[in-house]
């Protein structure tokens, strides 16, 4: 009902014919599609590499943050500082600092590819978020599980690896998938560094033709990319709910 009203209002508005040709031109969409799709491939590469790095780094930081005992206070502090910094810093600022600041140092071995630098910035920000998700997962595992593991003679590391983390990851999988969906679209931000991704490719086309349709094309492609993950996230959440309702206390 709302959709119908919105459609009627939009299409009957005085500016609609103009908007239709500058945002929804089929011809422009067809022309710009191949280069945007090529750009999207870059986004997908960044996405996959970043996702793997984020999980590894996030797990490591979460493990540090959940260490107990006064001996580990410095490590806990460092991990907390990392999370505070990169969770608070807007992603776009991190992108600028890493993308333009690092190469400006002209140190040897610092990559200059915007693909690499953009990925690094995204990993820095997202690993801080994901570390917090993992931490919540680790803390959701009941202390009695730790007691049982230690009473069997498992070391702290073995306890984390064999008993705590598998349960923690299972508990937070829906939240992780949600972050993955967010990551899928945020990889489009590497365009601010000049990497020719889907957004940048669209922008170039827009700059040449003053027609905004390529943005719509790029946006729809990102949506298409996100839909399967969103459905997987739904399925995983539903499964987790069923598990809980079947009377499992853990």
């Amino acid at each position: 009902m709302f959709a119908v009203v919105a459609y009627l209002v939009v299409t009957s508005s005085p500016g609609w014919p103009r908007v239709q040709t500058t945002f929804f031109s089929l011809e422009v969409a067809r022309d710009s599609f191949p280069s945007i799709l090529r750009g999207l491939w870059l986004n997908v590469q960044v996405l996959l590499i970043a996702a793997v790095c984020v999980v590894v780094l996030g797990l490591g930081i979460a493990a540090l943050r959940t260490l107990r005992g006064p001996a580990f206070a410095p490590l806990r502090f460092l991990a907390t500082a990392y999370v505070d910094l990169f969770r608070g810093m807007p992603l776009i600022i991190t992108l600028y600092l890493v993308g333009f600041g690092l190469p400006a140092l002209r140190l040897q071995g610092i990559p200059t590819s915007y693909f690499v630098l953009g990925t690094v910035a995204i990993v820095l920000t997202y690993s801080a978020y994901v570390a917090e998700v993992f931490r919540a997962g680790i803390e959701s595992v009941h202390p009695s599980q730790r007691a049982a593991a230690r009473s069997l003679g498992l070391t702290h590391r073995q306890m984390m690896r064999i008993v705590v983390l598998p349960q923690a990851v299972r508990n937070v999988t829906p939240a992780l998938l949600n972050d993955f969906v967010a990551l899928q679209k945020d990889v489009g931000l590497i365009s601010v560094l000049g990497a020719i991704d889907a957004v940048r490719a669209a922008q170039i086309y827009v700059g040449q033709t003053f027609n905004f349709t390529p943005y719509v094309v790029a946006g729809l492609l990102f949506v298409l990319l996100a839909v399967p993950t969103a459905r997987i996230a739904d399925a995983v959440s539903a499964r987790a709910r069923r598990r809980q309702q079947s009377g499992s206390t853990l």
Partner: protein
Amino acid sequence: MSAVLDVRGVVKAFGENVVLRGVDLAVDEHRVVALIGGSGSGKSTLLRCASLLEVVDDGQVLLDGEDITDPRVDADAVRRRLGVVFQAYNLFPHLSVLDNVTLAPVRVHGRSRSEAREEALGLLERIGLADKSGEYPDRLSGGQQQRVAIARALAVRPRVLLLDEITSALDPELVGEVLRLVREVAEQGMTIVMATHEMGFAKQVADTVCFLDRGVVLESGPPDQVLGDPVEARTRQFLSRIIDAGRL
């Protein structure tokens, strides 16, 4: 005969709350000691101190004559020699019954997977759950889970088995199957310390009953004496409350 487990003057406080105020307890090999007492009397804390899940504030715990509360002792190595069963079973929900039982033998004791598997299947056979070896714990009843937890503790061939109110979380009709298993394990010569509210069971199975009250062992001796004809007024008071509740 020297004691397998020897608790000497153990003190443990959680903040302001002093739970153990100097507990002494010696457990000889092949003996079954039952710890009784009201809730908050320190039974569970004592077992957690003995299994190094808590650090004692004062006193010592000796295992086969070795001071295991010495900070220089490798606590993981000590825990390998103990078996602990908890009130809430604490099985690992993401592992099958068989994997729960073989975990410590393989990962901690370095036994081969096939050897551990065979031994675990033997244990599961003994507790009558061989057909459940592939199931996950949440598919089992409380009594079955607790029996698996006992098998998991036995799989490491412990010197002492510490049982922490292992029937308190069970439905009454499931208590029997767990106690039958404990009795069988005791008859085979396992050294056992158990905190329990099952006075009838303590009477039948324990060699010694210790009554804990406000963080000290107030009275201990053969079950007939402690449960039947206690010396201390507070023991009598505790037992009469238990009798009133229909538990003895």
